[in-house]
C-alpha cells in the first residue's frame, strides 16, 4: 500500500520536475531560434549598401536604410536628452529628498508606475495630439519626444533604486565631515551608484530603440534623407514594420536585414549594460 503510493508520488515528482526543465529549455531555446533565424535571414541580405544607401523603389534591387539608421539615431538622441535628465533628477528627488512617506512622493511613484504601464501606442496618440496635430506635420522632434516620455518612468525608478542601494553610512560619513546634503548627494551618493544608474539608462535606451508604435504617427517615415529635425523621419523599427507587411519580396529582404541590425544593437547594449551592472559596487 505505502509502496504503491510512494511509487505514484515518486512518478509525479519525476514527471513534473522533468517538465519544468523541458519548459525552461523551450523558453531559452526560443531565444536561439529567434537569434538564429534572424541572423540566418538577415546576414544573408546585409551588405555595405544597407548602411550607406537610401531605400530604392519597389522592384529596383539594392538600396539600403541609411536614412532610417540616421533617423533612429536622431530620435534616440532627442529621447535621451529628455528621458535621462528628467528620469535621473526625478529619481534623485525620490531617493534623497522625497522620503518613504508623504503625499507628493507617493503621487510621483504612483504616476511613474502608471505611465510605465501605459501602452506605447497610447503615448504615440498623446504625442500626436500635442506635437503633430497643432503643427500639422510629422517630425523627428515629435518621435524623439514620444520616446523620451517613454524613457522617463524607467530611468526614474531605476535611478531611485540604485541610489537606495547606497548604504546610509555613506551619507552619514560625508555629512559628518561637514558636507551639505546636496554635496553629499552629488559627490558621494551618486558617484557610488553611478554604474548601476548608467546601466539602467542603457537598458532603458535599448528598450525605446526598438519601439515602433509611438513613432507611427509622430515621426511617420520617409524614403529620403530628412533635412533637419522638423520633417517626417524614417526609423529602423518603422521601416521593418512597413517592409514586413508589404507584399514585395525585395522589401522583405530589407526588413530581415534591418531586423538583424536592430536586434544585434539592442542585445549588444543589453549585454554591455548588464556587464557594467555586474561591476557595480552597490546594487
Amino acid at each position, binding site marked *: 500500500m505505502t509502496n504503491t503510493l510512494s511509487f505514484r508520488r515518486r512518478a509525479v515528482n519525476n514527471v513534473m520536475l522533468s517538465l519544468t526543465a523541458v519548459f525552461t529549455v523551450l523558453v531559452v531555446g526560443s531565444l536561439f531560434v529567434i537569434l538564429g533565424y534572424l541572423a540566418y535571414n538577415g546576414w544573408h541580405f546585409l551588405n555595405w549598401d544597407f548602411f550607406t544607401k537610401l531605400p530604392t523603389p519597389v522592384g529596383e534591387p539594392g538600396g539600403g536604410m541609411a536614412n532610417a539608421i540616421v533617423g533612429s539615431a536622431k530620435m534616440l538622441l532627442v529621447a535621451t536628452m529628455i528621458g535621462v535628465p528628467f528620469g535621473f533628477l526625478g529619481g534623485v528627488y525620490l531617493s534623497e529628498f522625497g522620503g518613504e512617506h508623504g503625499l507628493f512622493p507617493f503621487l510621483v511613484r504612483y504616476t511613474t508606475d502608471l505611465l510605465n504601464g501605459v501602452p506605447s501606442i497610447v503615448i504615440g496618440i498623446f504625442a500626436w495630439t500635442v506635437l503633430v496635430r497643432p503643427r500639422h506635420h510629422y517630425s523627428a522632434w515629435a518621435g524623439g519626444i514620444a520616446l523620451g516620455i517613454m524613457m522617463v518612468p524607467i530611468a526614474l525608478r531605476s535611478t531611485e533604486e540604485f541610489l537606495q542601494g547606497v548604504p546610509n553610512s555613506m551619507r552619514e*560619513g560625508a*555629512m559628518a565631515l*561637514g*558636507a551639505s546634503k546636496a554635496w553629499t548627494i552629488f*559627490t558621494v551618493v551618486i558617484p557610488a551608484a553611478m554604474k548601476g544608474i548608467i546601466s539602467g539608462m542603457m537598458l532603458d535606451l535599448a528598450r525605446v530603440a526598438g519601439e515602433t508604435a509611438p513613432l507611427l504617427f509622430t515621426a511617420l517615415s520617409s524614403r529620403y534623407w530628412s533635412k533637419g529635425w522638423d520633417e517626417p523621419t524614417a526609423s529602423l523599427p518603422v521601416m521593418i514594420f512597413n517592409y514586413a507587411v508589404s507584399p514585395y519580396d525585395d522589401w522583405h529582404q530589407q526588413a530581415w536585414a534591418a531586423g538583424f541590425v536592430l536586434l544585434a544593437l539592442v542585445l549588444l547594449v543589453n549585454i554591455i549594460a548588464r556587464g557594467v551592472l555586474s561591476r557595480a*559596487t552597490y546594487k
Partner: protein
Amino acid sequence: MNEVDGTAVRMVQDPTQTIPAEATKPEMKVQLRTEGVNFYYGKYQALHGIDLDVYRHKITALIGPSGCGKSTFLRTLNRICETISHTRVEGKILLDGEDVMELDVTSLRRRVGMVFQRPNPFPKSIFDNVAYGARINGLHRQKRIRDIVEESLVRAALFEEVKDKLQQSALALSGGQQQRLCIARALAVNPEVLLLDEPCSALDPIATAKIEELLFVLKDTCTMVMVTHNMQQAARTAEYTGFFLLGRLIEFDKTDTIFRNPSKKETEDYITGRFG
C-alpha cells in the same frame, strides 16, 4: 599643523561672542557641555535630561547596555541625528560655550568629526577618501590637498601601509585599515572634537589594539568622545566615563572612580557583570 586654509573653521573663539559665565576660568577645560538634553524618535523619548561635560584633550567613554541611548546621545553632539526624520532634540549642547543649535550645521560638523561603528569608506580611492573633507572645505590647490592627505594618514598611523597605493580603491583595504582610513578622513578636516561610535566593534583584537594606540596619540590634539560596548576598552583608554541606562546618564566620573568605586548601584551592577 593647525594652520589650515582660511576657509576652514577654526576653534578660536570669536572675541565678540559672549561666553557664559560658567564656561570661564575654572572650567575652561570643558570643551563640550550638554544641559538637559532630551531626544525623541517621534513620540518615543530616547534620552532623558542628559547633563555631561567633556574635557578638552581627554577621552570620554560612554558605556552601557545596548539600547541605552549612548549612541543616540553621541549623534546629537554633531547633530547627525537630524538626518533621520521625525526626531527632535531638546536642551542645550554647548561647544566652547556656543550653542550648537545656533551654529551652522555643516561648520559644526567640521569642528566635531565622527567615526562610525562600521568602517564606511566611500567607494573612491584611498587618496580621494581623505581628500574629501579638505575639498568640501573649499581647498582646491593640489599640493595643499596632498599635504593634508599625507599628514592625516600619518596621524591615523596608516600612511606606511598605504603610501604606495593611494590611488587604489579604499574598499580593498582590511576592516581595521578601513577604520583607520575613516579616522584619517575625519582628521583631515582638523576637528576639535572627534566622536567615535563603537569604532572597534567590527574589528578583530589586533586591529582594535592599533586603534586604541592611535587614540592615545591623538589625544594631544583632539578631544574624543567614544561610545563603547567593551568595558575593558573604556578602562584602558578613557580618562572619564559615563554610564548610560535606559536613556539616562546614571553616573559620570573619572574612569578609575567609575570602575573601582562607583557611587550608584546600577553602575556597580553593570560593571560587575550582573546584567547587560
